[in-house]
């Protein structure tokens, strides 16, 4: 009786763990990079996020020890006017992906703790709407870098 109760308990725990899998566990980041600008100017960060889960996820932003402020933004160009708008979240569909790329979705990084130089690797903790986080390495590239991944 005792071993049976134990295995039932384990099975229950496993189920519970499965049901409570976080967004971060199923997100695979790639092409993570930052366009570094001179001085203390805000920089743009880009990444492709693939979701291997059956559940939709959503990116809500990021935090980092390297930058005091990080904001999720979307650039648009309507009627010949360039605009930037703040986003509360960006959906990553089940078995789909979200692409943060120049002239579109990006993370705006502000107030660098120390000057970030091209070649540096900066850790950003991507945050998802369920509260989970994913530490991701972003490579710093020069201002004139062209995004050749898309």
């Amino acid at each position: 009786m005792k071993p049976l109760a134990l295995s039932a308990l384990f099975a229950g725990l496993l189920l519970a763990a499965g049901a409570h899998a976080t967004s971060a566990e199923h997100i695979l980041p790639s092409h993570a990079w930052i366009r570094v600008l001179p001085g203390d100017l805000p920089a743009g960060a880009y990444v492709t996020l693939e979701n291997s889960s059956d559940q939709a996820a959503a990116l809500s932003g990021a935090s980092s020890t390297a930058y005091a402020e990080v904001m999720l933004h979307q650039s648009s160009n309507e009627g010949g006017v360039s605009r930037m708008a703040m986003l509360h979240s960006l959906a990553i569909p089940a078995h789909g992906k979200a692409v943060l790329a120049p002239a579109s979705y990006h993370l705006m990084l502000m107030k660098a703790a120390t000057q970030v130089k091209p070649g540096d690797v900066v850790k950003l903790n991507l945050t998802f709407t369920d509260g989970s986080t994913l530490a991701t390495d972003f490579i710093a590239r020069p201002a004139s870098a062209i995004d050749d991944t898309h």
Partner: protein
Amino acid sequence: MKSRRSPGVAIWLLLVISLLLSGCQRSAPLPFQLTNISGHMPALDFKLTDDQGKAVSGADYRGKVVLLYFGYTHCPDVCPLTLAQLHVVMQRLGPLADGARILFVSVDPTRDTSAVLHAYVHAFDPRVVGLTGDPRIIEALVKRYRSAFTREPASSDGNYEVSHSSAIYVFDRDGNARVLSTPTDSQDDLVHDLHLLLSTGASS
């Protein structure tokens, strides 16, 4: 008498012919691939301060093919992308690119001092010139090219964005507006049209 007069006549004839020819060259439509704005936009004319702190005017860039773009340095996404793409365009033009100047006019003169602009534009390409100045003069310049910019409300920390025109206005060596490049246009078309403008009147 006759022998003295004829060389004079010949010189006058040569002058008239060369004037006619240069006139023809100027009016002959170039086969542009981008939106042709020749005669539809005013010539390059402004009084601003460059990124070295020097007072400059549109006339200072006569003899160069000018690419005019409005932006600001606190723009982390679209402005650097545009300048990075223009750097590629300059590289594709090879030695011809020395006849071109990219004028990056700040629509955020409050934050964009000459020093800030200097570090910024030089991170992209040596042919970019950063321009700043009196906000009213910049507003008038933007309006001159039938565009506008809006300073968006500031966030709690005082940071703000500026919505601005995404177009690149291209002027010939005489300062006449010739073509307009927008983000949806192909880079090949811009390279093609700049090649046309840079290959003509290179002596001036």
